């Protein structure tokens, strides 16, 4: 360190100018290709895709007429869109709290296990579904939910219960998909919560024990507050991804029965690629983006965190 300081003092002024020039060209040469790729394959498609909402765009047409805000008026009248909107919130409002509660308790549970080997084994077991392709998991689960020869109905029958049409009964379809989503997804949050729990110093609990606190009080007054930063992160990331969930809805039910499992992402996909109403799909995607943005901001506000990018 000392030698560097000495050398720095000795460096002539001109060399410093050269240094700056070298840094500038380094920034330029390293960012240029990256930013170009980024522009071409991210920014331009996004702007292009978003601008489509002002047009009646069908990729096969030569011309696409400008329609202003007509797509949004159509949204206002589209009953299926309203249903998809409600379904998306139903899904999110059940799945996210369920996810957080389950993952938090499993994480606390695993952290209490004394043996490192078992702790790691449990963590791996719960995490394993998260690495499988979601589309593959959805195919596997739709066979498990099958009304005739699916695993769940085989078990129900053995136990002497009546079979359930998991994916075709309007009462159970969305719940079935939520169960599948939780299976596929809880691994991430368990790992993150476990890390958050690890960072809470043991002395807090020891002190609380000396004060005669019970398990619930320790959870309520130590674990929860000290996990708030982790929880906020988990909440925000889970919300962003759950609002956009797609493969299981397309593969397991494709929105049926009676549009009970049609969520916004599926409705966007269908209008964009099945009906080729790209303009209308863009308008819906824009609404979805606004929802995600709003939810994220509200969560951050409530979390009162210094969220740094």
């Amino acid at each position: 360190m000392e030698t560097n300081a000495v050398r720095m003092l000795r460096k002539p002024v001109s060399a410093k100018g050269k240094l700056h020039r070298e840094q500038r060209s380094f920034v330029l040469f390293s960012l240029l290709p990256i930013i170009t790729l980024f522009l071409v394959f991210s920014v331009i498609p996004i702007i292009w895709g978003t601008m489509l909402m002002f047009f009646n765009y069908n990729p096969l047409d030569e011309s696409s007429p400008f329609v202003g805000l007509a797509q949004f008026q159509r949204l206002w009248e589209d009953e299926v869109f309203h249903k998809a909107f409600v379904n998306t919130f139903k899904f999110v409002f059940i799945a996210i709290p369920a996810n957080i509660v389950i993952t938090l308790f499993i994480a606390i549970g695993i952290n209490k296990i004394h043996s490192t080997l078992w702790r790691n084994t449990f963590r791996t077991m719960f995490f394993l579904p998260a690495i499988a392709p979601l589309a593959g998991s959805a195919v596997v689960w739709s066979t498990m939910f099958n009304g005739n020869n699916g695993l769940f109905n085989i078990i129900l029958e053995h136990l002497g219960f009546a079979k359930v049409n998991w994916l075709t009964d309007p009462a159970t379809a969305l719940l079935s998909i939520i169960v599948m989503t939780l299976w596929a997804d809880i691994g991430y949050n368990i790992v993150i919560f476990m890390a958050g729990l690890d960072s809470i110093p043991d002395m807090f609990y020891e002190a609380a024990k000396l004060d005669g606190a019970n398990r619930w009080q320790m959870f309520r007054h130590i674990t929860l507050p000290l996990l708030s930063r982790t929880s906020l992160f988990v909440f925000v990331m889970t919300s962003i991804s759950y609002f956009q969930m797609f493969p299981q809805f397309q593969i397991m039910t494709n929105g049926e029965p009676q549009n009970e499992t049609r969520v916004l992402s599926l409705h966007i996909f269908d209008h964009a690629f099945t009906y080729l109403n790209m303009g209308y799909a863009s308008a819906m995607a824009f609404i979805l983006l606004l929802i995600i943005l709003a939810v994220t901001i509200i969560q951050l506000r409530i979390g009162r965190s210094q969220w740094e990018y």
Partner: protein
Amino acid sequence: MNKWFAFCMAVVLTAAVALSGCSGSKEEGASGGKVKLVWWSHDNPAFVAANKTLIEEYKKVNPNVTIDLQAFPYDAFIQKLKASFAAKNPPDIAQMFGTWVTDYAKKGLLQPALDDSIRGNFFDASLGAYVVDNQLYGLPHEYNLENGGVLVHPKMFQDAGVNYPPKTWDELVAAARKLTRYDGNKIKVRGFDFTSGDNITFTFLSLILQQKGKYWTEDGHVNFSTPEAVKAMTALKDFVVKYKTTDMSLFGTEDISDTFFKGGSAMAIRGPWTIAAGKDTYKVSDFEYMPMPSFTSEPPYFAAESGWGEVVAKASKHSKEAWDFVNFMMDKEQALNWNIKTLTVPANKETASDTKLLEAVPLMKTSIDVLKYGQWIGPVQDRDYFFKQINDQFQAIAAESVSVEDGLKKIEKEINKMIDQHLQ
């Protein structure tokens, strides 16, 4: 770490360059009199096999033409077609479903047929979607019908002491009710089933036609506020709500023909193409394909889509060779073999009346007999949207959350809105 990283990078990049290099996109085209055509189809194994046979046969006559057949899963195929035409790099020839053709033709993306006189060889229903502004934009292999025939288990009739086959609508309903079996409140054997995505719509439309009703207006919109439409929809609703010969629990997950072959229904109205699955996948032969009785005293009129056929892209650099191959496929002999291999109903009138067809596929007789009663479904514009509206509302009607009249009004409104968008 760094050396390892750099080493991996080098190895992998070399591999990538090698991989993409050895199979790089050589400029397709005519070199030394040789022509390479790219031909897309969907990946139904029977279709792929029949297409490959066509290529081999063609090669014998035209050794200079290489045809590269690329087959994709059905859903992906639809999207890839749209994407490739939008990006102006479509295949030379595409084996499209007839109903899709209209949209591509209207947008000037297809090459019109060189020889228009061939039109008379085909059934009108199978040609409908291939004609835009009185110009022919492709040729059909298949008369795609979902009506006319019913998959049926005669043994179930025998066991229940019901006369087989039912000849009139009333007999059909009576038989269906007697054949339905419940296990608690869960249906075990469906007496008469029609609850699949295609068949709800097609059965509905055919019941309108059999009352001599119409569902198109002069300006290309739909009209479902007719008494005929109400009666047709009520008849379908009754099967679910009143007679309870089927329920909606299969909709969207299992094809009604799969349920039928597993013994889950006594009668199921489904196209003749499902017969193959029964024989190949389920290895059953205890079923028959009986004529569907008419709803009225009129003949069993029905609506049909234009089925699978061939189109040539306007952007193709070898449209002459492409059309030559398409015409070869439509040749009587080739067409017959194709229809037999794929178990599809011929679009070509001569092929349909060829005795060799029924020798090879006896069960197809039921369908062949009713071909003359079929008419083209009409300019539905967006086929999937059209069917989805009817299916959505039928589910609501069957669940009794909406009345038949209101449901029909909603169908009409939504479909006409879509049609307006397309006619703009």
